[in-house]
């Protein structure tokens, strides 16, 4: 059975690893050894072939005394452990389970609790490190921590659990491998405190933008993306789901860029091949779109730059030198840009994430949208959308059903017996405006009955 790179960990792919502290980090299986810092290290090849979502424990060979010595010299990172998949656990959960905790609990009031700090813990950090190296699984580790903490029974159930979870995160050596989907990428950026990079957009806002934009495998979408490729990746995922070779699906994305070269760093994590991206995604700068050249001008420029070349002759050639091919490519790209800039009423949706002044922008580019199709704008703030709505869209008969929307996901601490919404949340996830481009009928063209 070959490895399905969409569902299973494969070679040479970006992957996301969830650590015991619940943080998401990005790695690449191209790396021979993946180092997780204090959580250990392991060989990439050990995890390849297992389904995404698998949890692995890192174990060190018991007889590896050399490793012990190295550790004491502070060089333990050099010898990776063995990543063992948890094959029998369908839940594949990194969280600490109630089974481990329940034996050690009592619910006495915390009235008598006087926090004596860490002095009360009989097991020293060095002891714990030792236990760790001696191939102790996390649950055993925790039992040890509990029975060696003299103060543990005095804590309330809640502080016991908090304490255990803290210790667990500090000492356990396991990790979960997730596919680098847009959803997991977002978690990664959130954990990195890097949401500014994607304009503070939340999963629920991008989800709503995708639905309102009516994304389908065969649609053609006009997009501005100031999220470094995150929006594009999210659209691609809905359309193709990671599969590049399904001939029944042939939608495209046309990206309007602010700069000459598109800035879509995050797209690399999508694991799509360059070939596929080249086929599916077209780039055009605001200048090329809105101040287009015409064919004569391009031909003239071609002549000016390559004084002695005739483009028609070049095009007619059956075989071209690399230099000739580059020149043909340049010409053909200019031609395709001109074509795009002339394609009115074409796109199935206009999907915008941009910090440009919106009235002006929508006024200039909405002509490319097919009548009856949606225009969906994301903005971190509400005010620019209100301005777009009141000062442009609602004054213009070419737009229908103008709505400003906000969606917000409220996650819960989902532990039975202590369920409540998370106490704090970051960012507000932004705002959306949606409307439909329509065709205005001149009132004078209508017969009076």
């Amino acid at each position, binding site marked *: 059975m070959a490895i399905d790179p969409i569902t299973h960990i494969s070679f040479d792919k970006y992957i996301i690893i969830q650590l015991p502290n619940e943080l998401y980090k990005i790695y690449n299986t191209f790396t021979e050894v993946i180092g997780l810092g204090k959580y250990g290290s392991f060989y990439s090849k050990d995890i390849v*072939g297992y389904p995404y979502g698998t949890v692995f424990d890192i174990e060190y060979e018991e007889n590896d005394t050399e490793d012990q010595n190295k550790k004491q010299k502070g060089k333990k990172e050099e010898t990776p452990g063995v990543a063992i998949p948890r094959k029998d656990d369908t839940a*594949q959960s990194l969280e600490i389970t109630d089974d481990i905790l329940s034996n050690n609990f009592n619910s006495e009031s915390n009235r008598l609790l006087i926090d004596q700090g860490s002095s009360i813990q009989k097991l020293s950090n060095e002891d714990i490190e030792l236990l760790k190296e001696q191939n102790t699984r996390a649950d055993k580790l925790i039992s040890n921590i509990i029975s060696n903490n003299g103060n543990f029974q005095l804590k309330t159930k809640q502080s016991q659990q908090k304490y255990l979870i803290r210790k667990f995160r500090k000492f356990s050596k396991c990790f979960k491998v997730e596919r680098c989907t847009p959803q997991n990428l977002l978690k990664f950026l959130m954990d990195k405190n890097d949401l500014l990079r994607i304009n503070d957009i939340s999963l629920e806002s991008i989800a709503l933008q*995708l639905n309102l934009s009516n994304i389908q495998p065969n649609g*053609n979408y006009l997009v501005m993306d100031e999220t470094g490729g995150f929006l594009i990746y999210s659209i691609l995922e809905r359309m193709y789901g990671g599969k590049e070779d399904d001939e029944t699906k042939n939608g495209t994305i046309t990206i309007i860029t602010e700069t000459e070269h598109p800035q879509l760093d995050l797209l690399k994590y999508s694991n799509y091949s360059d070939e596929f991206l080249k086929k599916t995604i077209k780039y055009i700068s605001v200048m090329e779109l809105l101040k287009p050249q015409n064919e004569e001008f391009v031909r003239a420029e071609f002549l000016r730059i390559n004084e002695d070349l005739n483009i028609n002759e070049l095009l007619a050639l059956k075989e071209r030198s690399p230099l000739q091919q580059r020149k043909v490519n340049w010409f053909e790209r200019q031609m395709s840009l001109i074509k795009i800039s002339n394609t009115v009423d074409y796109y199935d949706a206009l999907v915008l994430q941009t910090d440009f002044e919106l009235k002006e922008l929508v006024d200039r580019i909405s002509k490319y949208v*097919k009548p*009856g199709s949606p225009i969906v704008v994301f903005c971190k703030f509400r005010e620019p959308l209100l301005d777009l709505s009141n000062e442009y869209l609602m004054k213009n008969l070419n737009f229908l059903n103008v709505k400003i929307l906000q969606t917000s996901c409220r996650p819960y601490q989902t532990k039975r017996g202590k*369920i409540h919404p998370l106490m704090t949340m970051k960012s507000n996830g932004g705002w959306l405006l949606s409307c439909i481009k329509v065709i205005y009928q001149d009132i004078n063209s209508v017969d009076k009955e």
Partner: protein
Amino acid sequence: QGAFVHTDYENIVKENDLVLVYISKTNIRPVVLHKEGRLNTKYGTFLHSEIIGKQYGSQIGKFLNSNQVNRGKRHNKKNKDEKKEGEVGEENNDEEDEKKFGFIHVLKPTPELWTLSLPHRTQIVYTFDSSYITERLQITSLSNVIEAGTGSGSLSHQFSRTCGKLFTYEFHEVRKQQAELEFQQHGLLYQDYLDGKTDDKNVANIIINHRDVCKDGFLIDQVENINADCVFLDLPAPWEAIPNLNDPRVMNQNKQVRVCCFSPCFEQVDKTIEALELNGWGSIEMVEIQGRNFEGRKRMVKSIDDAIKVLCDQKERRNLGASNYRKYKKVRNELQEKDGINDDEHDLKRLKTNSIPADQKFNPFGKGMRVKEGDEKYEWSNVCKIESEIKSHTSYLTFATKIFNITRQE
């Protein structure tokens, strides 16, 4: 029968197409177009033949006679939210003679517009929730999705657009038949693909069954192995259905699969979590989605100086009033000595009220008048207004993942 999901280049409304007629924000009507068809709206009757042949997105307008306008106006009073749409020239309402222009728009159906057009048959999963569910379950064009129950079919449309195959189950027979008919009309039934009635299996991908999945599980005659990646359970007791997912012919066995349970009450969530844990699901997380609709409005800018002016004006008029009153008395006495009172009655009345007529008062905020929002005689600022009735809760969403059987691929 027109395909529900279409992205073809041609954008022309054809006979037998299913279109959505947009009459107002709260009135979107699905219509299948026939040469002889007629569509009655508050803006008058439109012939289907007026719509066929137009581009999608077209406005179709007509001049109404005053009678129709009146109906429209009465309707407008009830539904203030709609007043800006569908009728131009409202400011001329008082001149009954002139013909008014009313219009509709013809739109391609999308799952989201379709949801808005539904009469609230059963609890509908709205776009705020459904978009999040789609994203969170990581549904892509490769996913096989299980949905129970079908309900209004609103969510089925959204899933169908995005996913590979959709297996949807409804235990209420009448509702199942209703939904099946709709899917068929919309070109979404997988059976039609099998029967060769349509050739796009990306679009025709719904398999619907009449079934109580809690009692009878998910296996169906049509396929041997459902091989589902994602499950959405909108059932009163999802915990009764969860164990039925363990049949190896239901879920894809060797990959991470996802479930979402949709329950309005908290206690249902608690039981659901219990069942998920018992059946080996992990990464259990419950969330709520709170969606809000806003619209741009205008708010009058009232200057405090104008308010002061109004009061100064009133005071002046009151002071004026006292002397005017003497003048009034004098005039009255003079008039009573003559015969012809009528001619000057207007002047008298004016004096009698001790004030200048209302339309000559300084009235910067249009007090006592019907001021249209945005009237150019006044100053306005932009405000964002939330919908008047907020959907503050739909349901709790409980998500979980599972890998049934971990084996290594090589």
